[in-house]
């Protein structure tokens, strides 16, 4: 039975999981959810994710929500293949992957997501004007987080060590969108962060996902 991922290719959280699925070469079906029609708030979808957010995953009897727990599940399910994004066989490496996954979740995401929301979602989905004060405050926070990354990346090639892991992968989709805004400079101004971004975004699995990240593109 194939994995079903409910979501949309342009969503940062859905695409995070897509990148993981492609890294593992997993067979899956992307089942579109009609956000404009509020499908994600209807009972059928709420049965998959009571918080009414995409993505959700179905694998046999298992239903899961929260993109980071879904990607972790995928990585653990396909453990033992040549792809190893959790480093499960090495407890010390696995522990560092966990730490830097939480850093993305608790430090990086809260700082970058308001920039994404104000710069891309507000004008495009709501036809509104970005709130510059929120953007400026978030850009300052994000800068401080990226300063820590810049230092960390001087002692290891990737965030958790000299190996690519889910900790790096989870950053892909938000940074991809950030680079479409003037705030991409926060990445470009930091040489090691920039090099890390260029490395992780050139991975074949991400190259399959990036074309779907179309928010903010001019038609």
């Amino acid at each position: 039975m194939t994995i079903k991922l409910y979501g949309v290719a342009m969503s940062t959280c859905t695409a995070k999981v897509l990148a993981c699925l492609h890294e593992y070469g997993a067979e899956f079906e992307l089942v579109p959810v009609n956000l404009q029609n509020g499908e994600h708030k209807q009972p059928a979808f709420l049965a998959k994710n009571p918080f009414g957010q995409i993505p959700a995953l179905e694998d046999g009897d298992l239903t899961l929500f929260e993109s980071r727990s879904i990607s972790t599940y995928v990585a653990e399910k396909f453990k033992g293949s040549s792809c190893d994004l959790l480093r499960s066989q090495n407890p010390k490496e696995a522990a560092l992957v966990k730490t830097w996954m939480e850093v993305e979740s608790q430090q990086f995401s809260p700082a970058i997501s308001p920039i994404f929301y104000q710069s891309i979602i507000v004008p495009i989905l709501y036809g509104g004007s970005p709130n510059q004060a929120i953007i400026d405050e978030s850009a300052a926070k994000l800068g401080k987080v990226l300063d820590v990354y810049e230092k960390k990346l001087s002692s290891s090639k990737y965030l958790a060590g000299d190996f690519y892991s889910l900790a790096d992968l989870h950053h892909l989709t938000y940074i991809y969108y950030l680079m479409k805004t003037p705030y991409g400079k926060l990445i470009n101004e930091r040489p090691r962060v920039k090099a890390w971004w260029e490395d992780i975004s050139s991975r074949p699995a991400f190259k399959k996902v990036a074309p779907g990240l179309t928010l903010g593109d001019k038609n």
Partner: protein
Amino acid sequence: MATPVTVHGPPLSTAVSRVLACLIEKDVPFQLIPVNMAKGEHKSPDFLKIQPFGQVPAFQDEATSLFESRAICRYICEKYPEKGNKGLYGTNPLAKASIDQWVEAEGQSFNPPSSVLVFQLAFAPRMKLKQDQSLISQNETKLEKLLGVYEKRLGESRFLAGDDFSLADLSHLPNAHYLVNAAEREELFTSKKNVERWWGEISSRDSWKKVVDMQKQST
């Protein structure tokens, strides 16, 4: 006897208390090293070596240094599966994934509004800082709505991830404890039948009572 693990930080910190609760549930011996935050010890060069974001807790287990409370909790559960509460993070991959999605929900959806409320209502007055009424009101609304989802879920199962207490429930204890006991927001929990029952059960666990004692003794 193995060297105990070390936790750095004050028990009054919500993130530190999350780790302490997990260690006690898992019956893993630990040493608590105080960090004088009032004197800025968490921003000192020595501390930044073990926690580059200058936050508590930091954690050490033999040669492994970790940070981010939820990563530390997952690490403890995976390293010591046979100790203490064996089911805390599930005893099979499906159970673990189901628990993990609710740990993520706590980190992504419960933590942000509850942290703001705890700071505004419990800590700001004690620190003689002015409260932001609109921030309080916005986050009360968010939390109220969120707990509506929890109410429905907890009508379907005894605890968030199923019929057993798990890391998902534990993760909520620190902020919820302050909301109830220091921020005068008990009503958020007692106004919903299932949430009230759940809160009563999880907050009366021996492990949490021990953490609360540690918090009291540290003042």
